[in-house]
């Protein structure tokens, strides 16, 4: 029904914009990472040799995996809780998940600074019991980064898991119950295996998002919690070493594309089931 010509015309404007303001800049990074006037691999050599960069890569990996696992541990029970509500209550609880999802990460980071800071909500409360000088450092360190990241990541974990839980046939659980299976058995042999696609999608999404995380480590982390994105910013704006910044960005891009490809595969497999 659509002629080739009209299909082409409908797609052309957007494709042109995406080519110029998305594909071209990404290509520019790849080019910059191997060329600073001359062709060179200095940027990538630094990736493997600089101790600072090695440390930052390690941070990025530790924080991303850690935050994703915490988000899974907290997100799964939330998704299960949502799945067994009546539609009316689910709509209510969904707002508690969707409002933070749509709230600016800056608002959340600022609020967490108020909650976790030295004179923050939690430490003021603890001060009532342990004296005014007592405080637990929860800002500008790993704790702050994890709290901020998990807070940001949770909705992206909950939503795909909820989708896979809602797709399950409740009759299956009922049948297992009638045949005498306990709740742990039902969970382990029915609910959990059938929600694996949701878990995979949530975990991959969380990893993609956290590997590129910039705001949370910048606002809630300390010097030891610098991640790849912060290092890209540092080399771009502070030392003006665009080549090194580009080399780090290319590595981040490649890792993200690989994870995204897995995500795409797990999604299409989920749809086929």
């Amino acid at each position, binding site marked *: 029904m659509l002629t080739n010509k009209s299909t082409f015309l*409908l797609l052309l404007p957007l494709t042109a914009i995406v080519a110029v*303001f998305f594909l071209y800049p990404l290509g520019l*990074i790849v080019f910059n990472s191997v060329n600073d006037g001359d062709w060179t691999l200095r940027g990538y050599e630094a990736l493997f040799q600089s101790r600072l960069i090695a440390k930052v890569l390690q941070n990025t990996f530790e924080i991303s995996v850690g935050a994703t696992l915490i988000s899974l541990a907290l997100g799964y029970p939330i998704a299960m809780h949502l799945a067994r509500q009546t539609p009316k209550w689910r709509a209510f609880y969904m707002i508690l998940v969707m409002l933070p999802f*749509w709230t600016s990460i800056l608002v959340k980071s600022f609020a967490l600074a*108020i909650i976790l800071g030295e004179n923050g909500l939690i430490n003021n409360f603890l001060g009532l019991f342990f004296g005014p000088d007592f405080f637990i450092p929860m800002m500008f360190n790993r704790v702050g980064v994890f709290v901020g990241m*998990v807070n940001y990541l949770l*909705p992206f974990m909950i939503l795909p898991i909820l989708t896979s839980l809602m797709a399950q046939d409740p009759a299956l659980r009922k049948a297992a119950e009638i045949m005498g299976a306990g709740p742990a058995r039902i969970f382990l042999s029915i609910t959990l295996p059938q929600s694996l696609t949701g878990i995979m999608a949530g975990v991959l999404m969380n990893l*993609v998002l956290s590997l590129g995380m910039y705001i949370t480590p910048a606002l809630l982390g300390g010097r030891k919690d610098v991640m790849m994105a912060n290092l890209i910013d540092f080399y771009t704006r502070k030392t003006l070493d665009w080549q090194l910044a580009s080399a780090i960005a290319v590595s981040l891009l490649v890792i993200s594309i690989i994870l995204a490809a897995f995500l795409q595969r797990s999604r299409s497999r989920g749809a086929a089931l």
Partner: protein
Amino acid sequence: MSDKLTPGGLARLYRLSGGSVAIVGYLFLILPSIVVIPISFGGHGELTFPPRTFSWDLYTDFFTDPAWWGTAVQSLKVAALTTALAVILAAPASYALVRGNFPGKQTLSLILLSPILIPLIVLGLGLYLQFAALGIVGSTLSLVLAHVVLVTPFVIVSISSGLRHIDPTLERAAMIMGAGHATIFFRVVFPQIRASIAVGALFAFLISFDEVIVAYFISGADTMTLPVKMFSAIRWEISPVIAAVSTLLTALSLVFCVVIMFLQKQDNGSSQ
């Protein structure tokens, strides 16, 4: 029925423990959005919780200080232009992707959707290099075009799902009866996918309005957006005005969130 069907002690305990983890999770999710509200009415001075006095001072500051209000106006401008442009570009593209059949369709739709999964910092750097080479870092237009790229995947997803839910035979019937492309779109397709377009537009507006990383890389002193101003304010000054801005942004998100949920529900209802 036997006792086995009613949840036994163990089952109840299991459900209760899962449920309490969930409640803690909801609190953890929602607490940051709520905690800023009382503080925003606390007035100047130290950020304390709960505040000792009630005042509108921080809101007055926000709306009268050009350093704050000016950036808010800039953000509104960027978000409005981004939304309009994104819908105008994404609606025809979505139609072609859903109804059309051409070689390379999968690849093209993958490319058009991929900005969702690329770290913003990478795109920010790329655009920074691009605009620096052209000497146009900091123009409003460049920021709008960058945001269009970022938000169109969400608009495409929303409009495409609307298109998949409507019956294409109506369009075919209109064509057989001699309607032109424009008539078919505005009289047949558009009325059926209004809600999906609205959802896509709301996504686009809110994402652009809240976007900080790309804006931080490519906006200049004159074109600074509210999130960029907020980011540097949280980082360097911890000005109490941030609490008022945060409360306003949370209220905005709440309105958008409820409207989007309502529209999506309506959409599902009408298509079933």
